[in-house]
């Protein structure tokens, strides 16, 4: 069947919706949102890092761009969540394009450092921008009785969703599934093949007709845009935002660690990595503090780099090949 994957995606979205209607314990939506947000970050990072081989250390900067675009929009226009996410995606996508234009001439570790610097610059700017709360941060009160296309979305009695946690969970899940679809599409497209060639040898790719600069710019824009969408609902989720939470190092590290652990060559890698690492982190965070959590991520990453450098996907492929022989 031609549209098998698309149908599975739609069914998953329906499934997510069903969960919000059936499951009563809000705690699951609370941590589910975080795992799904990490999943989007991991998928986004992998478009540039996994397919194209350009390591972005500044993922938190793109996520925060989405988050603060939303905050600015709430302050300025009082628009709804969906509009915030679209705007966050566009602004972060444009930022990706601009960053790419400035930094993609750099290779390897220099590019990675440039992206890190970008995140630091953005954080400094936001910390001095009082309209969005500055360094102290600002509280965000979710809109009461929000509507989308004339429907009452969140309301305890008459809304589609009983509360904001359910709505946010459903939104982030839908975004994650759309990002899965996009990254799978890229992987099997001319863009994906061109990015792979760039990863293997940029000079050879360019000399074999691949417009390397253009493909890298497209990849940074898509990657940045996805991260912006993931970041836009952050303020609504926390009901508070400050530079520390938006530019959290955990985003940058997980965005790299999750694809590396799952496997960077395929769309499924970041998804598997986010599900495993994200769930493990959320569960363990019930008992241990977040600094220790980062340490665990680091250790797991080192272990993977040593015993399964191509991630879980690569490990599975290899063992299947081995048994076929």
């Amino acid at each position: 069947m031609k549209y098998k994957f698309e149908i599975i995606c739609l069914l998953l979205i329906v499934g997510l919706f069903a969960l919000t209607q059936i499951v009563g314990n809000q705690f699951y939506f609370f941590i589910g949102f975080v795992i799904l947000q990490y999943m989007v970050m991991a998928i986004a990072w992998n478009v540039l890092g996994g397919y194209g081989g350009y390591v972005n250390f500044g993922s938190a900067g793109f996520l925060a761009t989405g988050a603060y675009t939303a905050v600015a929009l709430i302050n300025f226009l009082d628009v709804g969540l969906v509009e915030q996410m679209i705007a966050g995606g566009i602004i972060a996508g444009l930022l990706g394009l601009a960053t790419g234009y400035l930094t993609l001439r750099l290779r390897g570790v220099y590019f990675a450092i440039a992206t890190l610097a970008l995140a630091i610059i953005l954080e400094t700017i936001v910390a001095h921008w009082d309209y969005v709360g500055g360094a102290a941060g600002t509280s965000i009160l979710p809109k009461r009785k929000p509507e989308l296309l004339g429907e009452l979305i969140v309301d305890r009695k008459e809304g589609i969703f009983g509360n904001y946690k359910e709505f946010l969970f459903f939104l982030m899940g839908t975004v994650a599934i759309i990002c899965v679809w996009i990254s799978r599409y890229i992987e099997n497209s001319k863009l994906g093949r061109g990015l792979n060639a760039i990863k293997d040898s940029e000079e050879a790719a360019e000399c074999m007709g691949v417009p390397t600069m253009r493909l890298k710019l497209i990849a940074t824009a898509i990657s940045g845009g996805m991260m912006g969408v993931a970041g836009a609902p952050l303020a609504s989720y926390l009901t508070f935002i400050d530079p520390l939470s938006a530019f959290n190092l955990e985003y940058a590290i997980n965005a790299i660690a999750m694809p590396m652990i799952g496997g960077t060559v395929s769309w499924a890698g970041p998804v598997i990595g986010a599900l495993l690492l994200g769930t493990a982190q959320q569960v363990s965070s019930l008992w241990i503090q977040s600094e220790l959590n980062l340490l665990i991520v680091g250790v797991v990453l080192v272990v993977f780099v040593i015993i399964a450098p191509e991630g879980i996907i690569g490990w599975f492929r290899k063992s299947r090949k081995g048994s076929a022989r």
Partner: protein
Amino acid sequence: MSEALLKVDGVSKHFGGFTALSNVTTHVSQGERFGLIGPNGSGKTTMINCVSGLLRNEEGKIIFDGKDVTNLKPHKRTGAGIARSFQIPRPFHTMTVIENLMIPAEFVGHHRGEKVDDRAEAMEILETMGMAEKANDTTLDLTQIELRKLELARAMAAKPKLLISDEAMAGLTGQEVDEVIDILFKMNERGITIIMIEHIMRAVMRFSQRIICLDAGQLIAEGTPDEIVKNKDVERAYLGSDDDG
């Protein structure tokens, strides 16, 4: 044969204070088998980098097929019909052999609005190279000569008018060298103009119709293989260098 496909016009290239190419002027005719020789470090690869666009020459012009390509990016030049191999093979190492050929087939072929079966064409190229049974191997499993052949095969998949082979034979055995020369002859018979860069004199002499010799970035001789063999400057350049030209 008389019409120039490639003109290199007064090209100079500097790396900091070092002059790697100094005011080189030459041309390659349509359909020609052209040899580029010179001792190690004389600027052969640098000249090819300027022609293919990986390096920009500070002075002079590169004219290809009647158009000034001096300021074009490499992929645009490939689209115009220049394809090259790399002296140190740079395969797409996460791909299979045939996937390596599919990259230029897809990116250059599509560019020209051609609608053809890329895979079948790539397979045909691999067959002429004697690489057909390696099509689905990863490049990590290839031997040195197979990697050199892959470099040429991948360049061929870009459907070039001009194919530049940068020392495809260094380090190969005598029999392997003959094999590569045969492949280049076959491509030339199909109407592709070929620049062969080589350190091994015997190979270039047999293959080329016309040869130029670089020494320390300067063009020191130009002529038929016979003329080059007798040229005193060429002899001096090769004797003066401490490697075994």
